């Protein structure tokens, strides 16, 4: 692409591989994916900690005494619904329909808030019963793992509201589309982590 014919009598010319121009934001998606993978490693550490410590109740409450699977099922449904509504938001975004995108984003945010409310209710209930993080190694690792996931959902919701303001102000411009696609990956990724949480923590905990 850069090489030009060199006349024979000139000195050899070295063509350094030029960093070709990238369209703005062209590498954002890959970069964000790499961030998600590093986030995945954080969760792997927390899962490993829970796997090691999850059986150490210190004569305190065990999963069976604490977990309410009905509540967890509702919570899982909330996160799954929020995933599909975010998908709908992406589809309407592709069609350039601002109002519909905003509406689906709002529905997603509400499902996210519902998830957080149920989780906080569960935590409050457990702490009220004396199952605090400092009670046993099981509870420490439980609150760390599930709390970290909840914190991610919280920040995802904050991000979602931020992007709704952005879209309201500037419309579905290229930058906003890119941001929405990043949040889409983040949001679906959190749902993937939640599959691990409800399987390894809640369902397997009840089987212990």
């Amino acid at each position: 692409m850069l090489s030009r014919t060199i006349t024979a009598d000139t000195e050899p010319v070295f063509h350094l591989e030029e960093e070709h121009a990238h369209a703005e934001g062209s590498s954002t998606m890959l970069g964000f994916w790499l961030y998600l993978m590093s986030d995945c490693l954080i969760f792997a550490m927390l899962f490993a900690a829970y796997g090691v410590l999850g059986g150490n109740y210190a004569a305190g409450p065990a999963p069976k005494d604490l977990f309410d699977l009905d509540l967890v099922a509702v919570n899982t449904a909330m996160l799954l619904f929020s995933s599909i509504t975010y998908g709908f938001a992406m589809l309407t975004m592709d069609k350039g329909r601002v109002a519909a995108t905003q509406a689906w984003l709002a529905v997603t945010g509400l499902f996210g808030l519902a998830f957080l409310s149920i989780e906080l209710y569960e935590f409050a209930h457990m702490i009220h019963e004396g199952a605090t993080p400092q009670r046993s190694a099981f509870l420490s690792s439980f609150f760390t793992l599930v709390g970290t996931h909840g914190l991610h959902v919280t920040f995802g919701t904050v991000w979602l509201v931020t992007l709704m303001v952005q879209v309201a102000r500037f419309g579905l411009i290229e930058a906003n589309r890119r941001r929405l696609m990043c949040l889409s990956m983040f949001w679906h990724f959190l749902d993937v982590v939640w599959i691990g949480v409800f399987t390894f923590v809640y369902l397997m905990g009840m089987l212990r």
Partner: protein
Amino acid sequence: MNAHDHAADHGPAHGGAAHGTLKSYLTGFVLSVILTAIPFWLVMTGAIDNRQATAIVVMVFAAVQIVVHMVFFLHMNTASEGGWSMLALIFTLILVVIVLTGSLWVMYHLNANMMPGLHDMREMP
């Protein structure tokens, strides 16, 4: 091909998170609902008598559902970002497997072998 054309090749349309269709999102959603409902039902009703067998079945369902989410919601395929995102994913999965199996394996044996008598064996993970 000039530099401008080349840059356009790397535009967002070329790779990245491919856009799903309504059909792919709905397929993913229906599959996820089924793959979530069955393990919950298994554990809540105790349909399988053997706990260990239930645990294995539940884990298999989780693994399948993670793949479903990756394909239908995160639109993972070997072609996105020229294969780099798949490479990153595989690398991460290898690390995750090492971290999880390594921790569980080593710590289980430390617990089981290092302090005989101090632990109630029923509390072992």
